[in-house]
């Protein structure tokens, strides 16, 4: 026996309807909170969207600060550049000087003396007259110096460190403080030194 077909009205009511309904307020708030948390997270761990920044590092600046910067190497780099712009015009890029015109700095005992007191004096006020370098006699005038060339104490320290540590020279670095000290000792001297005068400067 076939069942009577059911009345269609209740079925039609149960079927899903197409239309619009308001989103519950709690869902909106939850979505906003999740979005906020997401932004916080990206802000904290996103590394500023920089392709060079990986966890655990937070920013490019932090990484940059972490790089091991070799202060001495940096100083020598700067010293080399400044040397080539100044003293290197005469003493040459390789520090070998020019025969009959400019004495060498490579291997010179004036450059590599452990105490730079005499070297600083030469570079500040120049040197003239007979001088022995690497066993060779010179008798010239160094017509420019760090003061006339307008080299700052900082740069001069870098230059002297460079000429004391390149070309096979191996002497301790020179600090700006040492240069300032020599400047104070020599006062407003402007005339070049002679080798005799320099030899009278005590070395530590």
């Amino acid at each position, binding site marked *: 026996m076939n069942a009577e077909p059911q009345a269609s009205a209740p079925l039609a009511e149960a079927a899903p309807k*197409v*239309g619009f309904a308001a989103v519950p307020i709690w869902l909106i708030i939850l979505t906003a909170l999740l979005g906020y948390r997401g932004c916080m997270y990206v802000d904290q761990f996103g590394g500023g969207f920089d*392709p*060079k*920044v*990986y*966890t*655990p*590092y937070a920013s490019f600046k932090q*990484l940059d*600060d*972490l*790089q*091991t910067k070799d202060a001495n190497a940096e100083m020598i780099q700067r010293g080399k550049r400044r040397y080539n712009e100044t003293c290197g015009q005469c003493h040459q890029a390789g520090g070998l000087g020019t025969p009959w015109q400019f004495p060498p700095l490579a291997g010179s005992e004036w450059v590599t003396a452990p105490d730079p007191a005499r070297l600083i004096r030469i570079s500040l006020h120049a040197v003239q007259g007979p001088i022995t370098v690497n066993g060779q006699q010179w008798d010239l005038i160094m017509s420019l110096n760090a003061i006339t060339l307008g080299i700052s104490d900082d740069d001069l320290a870098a230059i002297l460190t460079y000429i004391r540590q390149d070309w096979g020279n191996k002497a301790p670095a020179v600090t700006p403080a040492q240069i300032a000290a020599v400047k104070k000792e020599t006062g407003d001297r402007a005339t070049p030194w002679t080798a005799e005068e320099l030899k009278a400067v005590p070395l530590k």
Partner: protein
Amino acid sequence: MNFGPLIFLGVFFTMACSWFGMIVVPQLQIGGQQPVKLEATGQMYPLPRAGLAQQGAAVYRANGCAACHSQQVRQGPPVFDVKLNDLGTNAAQVADIARKINHAAGAPLPGKNIWRTPVKKDADAAAKRLTDAGAKAAVVIVPTGADIERGWGARVSVAQDYLYDQPLMLGSRRIGPDLANIGARKPGADWQLWHLYNPRLITDGSFMPAYRFLFNEVPRRKDAPPALGALDKTLVAKTFPEPAGETVTDIVPTAEAVALVAYLASLNPDAPLFEAPAPVPPPPAAPATNTPAAVKP
């Protein structure tokens, strides 16, 4: 009402956003990455893998090693060591300053770490105090984190490390240990080969599958000379079951196994990079030899 177009647009924009964020932007940012010159050594990094190791990468891929082994090291924030390189002429004063920096430092000796701190500025200041006293001091950055303490790497893995890898086999699960620096961890080729032949010969209870099909098992009479290229059984003598009777079996690795091991040996990303600062690694040791020491894990 027909919502088809609306749903299509919704799906389309969702996919477009993630495609843009996960494919386009990274491609623009690191797609053109090039090998860099390392400051410490002047070498280019990374170098392309040697041919044999490249074939090994294909074997690694074909055998699904990446299903159980990741190749990426994670890292926590670094700490800083103040290292004394040279005492200089004023040793007494340097020793005094070293004691002030760290009471527990003990006698300052060249090459010794004086202090460890999580703050770079403090480490720099301490190093400067030592340098001002005439010593040579340096600040060494030391990555930390669980992976690094396990010896799984020197630093965090970054995109640069995978420049020549195609496809990338980073892996996402660590059923076995991470293999990012297995080349440095287990440099002995014999260890690797025996471990691949049967991990249980080396590690008790290991559940890594045995890759015996990468080896030829060659029977021979006991008094005959061993097959060419056969693995040295003295290295696993305790665990290798030798059948009774007149014949023994030689284990000869196939070309695939040899390539795979060359690939494993090539895995060692430890170069200090801008994006992943790390101490300068010591120069590579002499090439791995077949010494029994290599077998000990």
